[in-house]
């Protein structure tokens, strides 16, 4: 038995594959790659697969993680190549290791948000003050202090002079969707209502802000 933790990227149009669809997509890719994967028992056997940090539909990711198990003691030497030949466009297998770190260690995610609006110096000061938002979750809506969920946030102008946000946001049990940052910027008219930003997850970090793998 070898527990694989796979690091993969979700680029370009593959961003639009929803979380649930991503499960089936990766399962089928594993079968196409011919990997000796472990199936569940019972009436309807399926591949054990867990995608560690769900991503909203439409978001890209340079750093995504999933776990699955092989029935062999070691993975095939060219597992990454085999997977890449079997994955649809935009999904890229990057590297793997044996699963050691538990999911509960995940603390933060680093994002880049690429806006289509002009860079503004007014953006950064907003988040230096206390910002209250209504945070939606399965348990209902709660008014929270946005700043509690932001570990780091900065704004720069990209090469075209457009607004680019780099931030580290809380992940895990009570994660913050970067869309809330955009909501606040829209509220302050820094970002146009019609602007459809590109969200890219850059890294997954543990509770000590070290890279989580």
């Amino acid at each position, binding site marked *: 038995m070898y527990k694989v933790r796979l690091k993969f990227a979700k680029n370009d149009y593959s961003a*639009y594959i929803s979380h649930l669809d991503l499960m089936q997509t990766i399962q*089928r890719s594993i079968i196409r790659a011919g990997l000796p994967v472990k199936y569940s028992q019972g009436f309807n056997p399926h591949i054990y697969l867990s995608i560690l940090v769900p991503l909203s*539909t*439409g978001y890209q990711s340079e750093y995504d993680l999933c776990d699955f198990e092989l029935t062999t003691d070691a993975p095939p030497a060219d597992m990454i190549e085999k997977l890449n030949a079997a*994955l*649809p466009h*935009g999904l890229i297998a990057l590297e793997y290791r044996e699963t050691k770190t538990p999911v509960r260690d995940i603390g933060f995610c680093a994002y880049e948000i690429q806006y289509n609006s002009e860079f503004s110096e007014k953006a950064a000061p907003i988040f230096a003050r206390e910002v209250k938002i209504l945070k939606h979750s399965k348990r209902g809506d709660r008014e929270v202090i946005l700043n509690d969920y932001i570990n780091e946030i900065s704004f720069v102008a990209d090469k075209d002079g457009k607004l680019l946000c780099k931030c580290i946001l809380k992940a895990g049990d009570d994660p913050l969707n970067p869309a809330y940052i955009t909501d606040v910027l829209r509220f302050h008219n820094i970002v146009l209502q019609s602007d459809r930003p590109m969200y890219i997850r850059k890294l997954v970090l543990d509770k000590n802000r070290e890279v989580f793998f």
Partner: protein
Amino acid sequence: MDYKIKQCLDNVRKPARYTGGEFGSIIKDKSKIECRFALCFPELYEIAMSHLGSKILYSRLNAMENVWCERMHAPALDMEEQMRENAVMLYGLESKDYAPEFDIFGFSLQYELNYTTVLNMLDLAGIPKFARERTALTPLVVAGGPCVYNVEPVVDFFDIIMVGEGEENLPELTELYIKAKRENMDKHSFLMEAAKIEGIYVPQFYHVDYSEQGTIQAITADAGIAPIVKKAIVRDFDKAYYPETFVVPSTDIVFDRAMIELFRGCRRGCRFCQAGYTYRPIRAKSAETLTAQAKSLVETTGYDEISLSSLSSSDYPQLVPLCDNLLGYCDERHTNLALPSLRADSFNLELMENIQKVRKSGLTFAPEAGTQRLRDVINKNLFESDLQDACKIAFQAGYNSVKLYFMMGLPTETDEDLLGIGEVVKNVIYNFKMNGKNKSRGLKINVGVSTFVPKAQTPFQWVGQTTREEIRRKQDFLRDNFKIKNVQLSLHKSDSSYLEAIFARGDRRLSAVIYEAWKNGCNLDAWDEHFQFETWMKAFETCGIDPDFYAYREPAADEILAWDHIFSGVRKDYLRQEYEQAIAGVATPDCAHGCRNCGALELSGGVKCDV
């Protein structure tokens, strides 16, 4: 990423339907391509991607080095709104290039209620809808699919109709197009050349004259054009082109599995069934070929289910050896083997048990009519004892769920026949009480009763559809007499069946109505939530056409029918003979009991059917 497309995708439900990029989708180098073909399916992605015929043509065309075939589907309403707002034209899923970059647009006509969606897609593609408005060689707009057996209501929109199987003649047409493009041929000359290809119907070369009563007086072909268009078939079906792999969607669709096609045509000759006649002669693939095709698909796609598809899979002569070949293989790979389209009179429990080892699906039978008398009229050739025997075996083995399909509005039908449906259902329930293995779990029955639509190229093309009022009365009658516990009864909305009937036996004069209906917002008519019956009726009124003329009329035996110039493989006189047998209540045995000489052997060059 195209920013305008991204704008659309961020604002719609299920955006993965519009992104392409799926595993197996083909990307080519534009600079090496001489013909860009758009395979257009006039429905949403979920429906389009479930269609086997499109997969076959997609692969077949892309096997041509200088041709790039991409998919174009109908956007849902929210996506269409975004596209129009953001100036995004209909685009190929593979390249995201907009329609003006394409040469040929090939539409698959599966269902009459897709016609306005065809027009809507042409609109989104910036293509003039009427063939007479398209004077240049490019864009070329062609169509194929089951509706071609009476395609007259939409011929005004297409340059070419492909009647029959496209595996061979579609590449031939595409080669001819490339040659025409290179030589700067004008459209008319190209169409004259195309008309020589088997199965190609160029509507503008045929002219229809109408009598004072509104019936057809004559259908005349231009000089040099064959008066009858003969359907194209692949003669050696075992060697027919078949894809080694499929595009695997990255999102949910309706039928998401590997499929192999066991055989084409059907020997049963049920008189209402257009497909059974129009896919003749009956040609089967060998178990070896199918086994290889199944394995190739499963290994390259990663699918965990294979469907053995055909019109009547239990009639496939080599079914047992095929299943023997596949069962061990599927077991090892945790792959399910699905066998849809089984008949109750050839129900084999051992087979069912074996193939559904991985995942048990439900049991479905289609008696179609509630009494033997009516079953003989429609030539279903199924005795209730067959059905009950099949149910008994299944119930004893532990099945406790069954689906039964019937139709109403069949010719010569009486209320007694409708009551017969209830009797059949009650007998199935009693059967379960006597034989059910797990009686405590109870029996779940779903009964579907759809509305009969007379189809062209069948013996019932001379039958008028039952009126909407009468259908509603029958539906009320059924509901009132069907108060059986634990039985789910589903009935079809009569309005869309009425519209289907109009186009199924319609003629060229209807194109104005379809255009008018589309102009006034009709689109995605196959979906209940989008079907606008009132708008359709207004369109008929505006165009001065009486819809009842098409839906309810019973043409005389010697009347020229709008589709008489299309030969589907079954001769008109054979169909008339079958019609007369139906009215007399006499069944015709199936082809396995001896060739009926329906005319199909004319297409196979005398080679007998595989029964």
